[in-house]
């Protein structure tokens, strides 16, 4: 039972990697990375019962927290970068318009 569940979660992780590679926009890639992290937590939880080592649950707990923080940080970074680029484009357009 644990084996079946862990195999299904592994297949889903592969699908998430596929979406992260294909993903047309940066948000698709972030979504895929987030899903990969959540599935890793579930996989570690199932694996700890499959192999009979409850130590893995601590790793899953740490991974759940780190995954959330990293997704929020990357989102902030992407948003700020897109905004700065738009602002730079506007500024350079204004300079060109003034020169003409």
């Amino acid at each position: 039972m644990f084996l079946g569940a862990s195999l299904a979660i592994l297949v889903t992780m592969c699908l998430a990697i596929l979406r992260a590679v294909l993903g047309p926009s940066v948000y698709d890639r972030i979504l895929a990375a987030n899903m990969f992290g959540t599935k890793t937590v579930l996989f570690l939880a199932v694996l700890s019962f499959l192999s009979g080592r409850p130590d893995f649950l601590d790793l899953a707990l740490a991974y759940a927290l780190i995954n959330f923080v990293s997704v929020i940080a990357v989102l902030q970074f992407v948003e700020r970068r897109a905004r700065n680029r738009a602002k730079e484009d506007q500024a350079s357009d204004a300079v060109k318009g003034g020169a003409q």
Partner: protein
Amino acid sequence: MEQVIDIISWICLLGGALVVLIGGIGLVRFPDLFTRIHAASLADSGGAILVIVGCMLQAGLTLAGVKLAAILLFLLFTSPTAGYALAHSAITAKDDGLDVDIESD
């Protein structure tokens, strides 16, 4: 009694695995970003609840069960928050006309 709990936990685990798998297929096959967010967040919440509850039934009232409850609590707080932040960020970027190609495929 033990067998009943075993069967319930197997149903939870297999149902969770199915939900997770369907979410993964949806993540690959849906046409644009917001439908993909829908598929991924459904799989994140429903699949996580089912899989972890299945594991908790196997663990019983032990330290492992308490850790699993903590993992479930964190996941139920963080995954909707991350999904909301992602969708909000994408939709404001689209409304401001920043160059992200959300509408593709």
